[in-house]
């Protein structure tokens, strides 16, 4: 996979298939420290301890349809090529947490790629799974909490064509504010990501 955002989509889809209701995705780009961290926690059914150890092995899968599972091994290989690695652990409570680290400036590091397409593809999927997305880059931050979006929408689904469009432009504009150094770095005013700070202070 040529973009990290494709690996991220794959991990998000795994979380959905594990029955998660809420996934937290954090991307941390520390350019001065030359680190990129992708951290995904879900609240799905989780994995047995020994399965967690084997999940990065391409010849391990819990699926019955065939004998290989390539998603996590590919992601792990990409991280290892870039002086990083992939860690699979139990998420707080239940579920799985996957943390991939990369040397940010490594020549072999795939670009992050199109996060808007990744998040939209995930959010259009079924069954519904909420997402708390945080992308930090050199002190700037973009956040999206779909629970807040859904609160506003009432019974209108995220997949409604107009909502789809709203989400697409909200995410792409938010992502853009992170990469344009000249522009104001704060979050989009009154957007659905704002409450996230209060949220993370929960015990």
């Amino acid at each position, binding site marked *: 996979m040529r973009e990290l955002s*494709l690996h991220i989509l794959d991990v998000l889809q795994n979380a959905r*298939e594990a029955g998660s209701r809420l996934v937290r995705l954090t991307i941390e780009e520390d350019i001065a420290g030359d680190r990129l961290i992708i951290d995904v926690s879900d609240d799905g059914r989780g994995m047995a301890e020994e399965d967690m150890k084997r999940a990065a092995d391409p010849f391990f899968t819990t699926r019955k349809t065939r004998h290989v599972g390539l998603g996590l091994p590919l992601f792990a290989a990409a991280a290892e090529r870039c002086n990083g690695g992939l860690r699979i652990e139990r998420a707080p409570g239940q579920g799985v947490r996957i943390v991939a680290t990369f040397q940010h400036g490594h020549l072999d590091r795939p670009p992050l790629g199109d996060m808007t397409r990744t998040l939209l593809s995930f959010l259009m999927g079924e069954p519904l799974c909420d997402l708390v997305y945080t992308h930090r880059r050199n002190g700037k931050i973009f956040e999206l909490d779909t629970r807040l979006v859904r609160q506003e929408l009432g019974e*209108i689904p995220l*997949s409604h*064509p107009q909502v789809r469009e709203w989400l697409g*432009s909200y995410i792409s504009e938010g992502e853009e504010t992170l990469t344009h150094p000249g522009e104001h770095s704060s979050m*989009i*005013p009154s*957007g659905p990501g704002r409450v996230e700070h209060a949220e993370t202070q929960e015990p």
Partner: protein
Amino acid sequence: MPKLKSLEDLKKLRDQARQDIRVRLDTGTRITVGMGTCGIAAGARETMHAILEELKKREIEAHVTTVGCIGMCSYEPLVDIEQAGSSRITYGNVKPDRVPRLIEEHLINGRVVQEWVVGRLERESA
């Protein structure tokens, strides 16, 4: 098209959307894109994006969703189109450049693009 940014916009949008939601849910077209590891690696995310763009361009309203691996990995990207009253058709190798013709033939002209079909589920007789 004005950009929609804030929660205020979302509220306005909700009020608009509420009016036509029932019609859509009852009579809709449903497009499903395979988004397992195999699909993603074969370009399914870009196919999904192309579908959304094409629907927008042609002002077609359809429900677009994703599904995990269904076991036909070598035919990815897989796209499934289901319309009320018609057979459910699964198309294989739907790269983004196939999307405009697929939408035009299947959704607008109502003709199945036979050479891309990899699966078909006949309409259940009620």
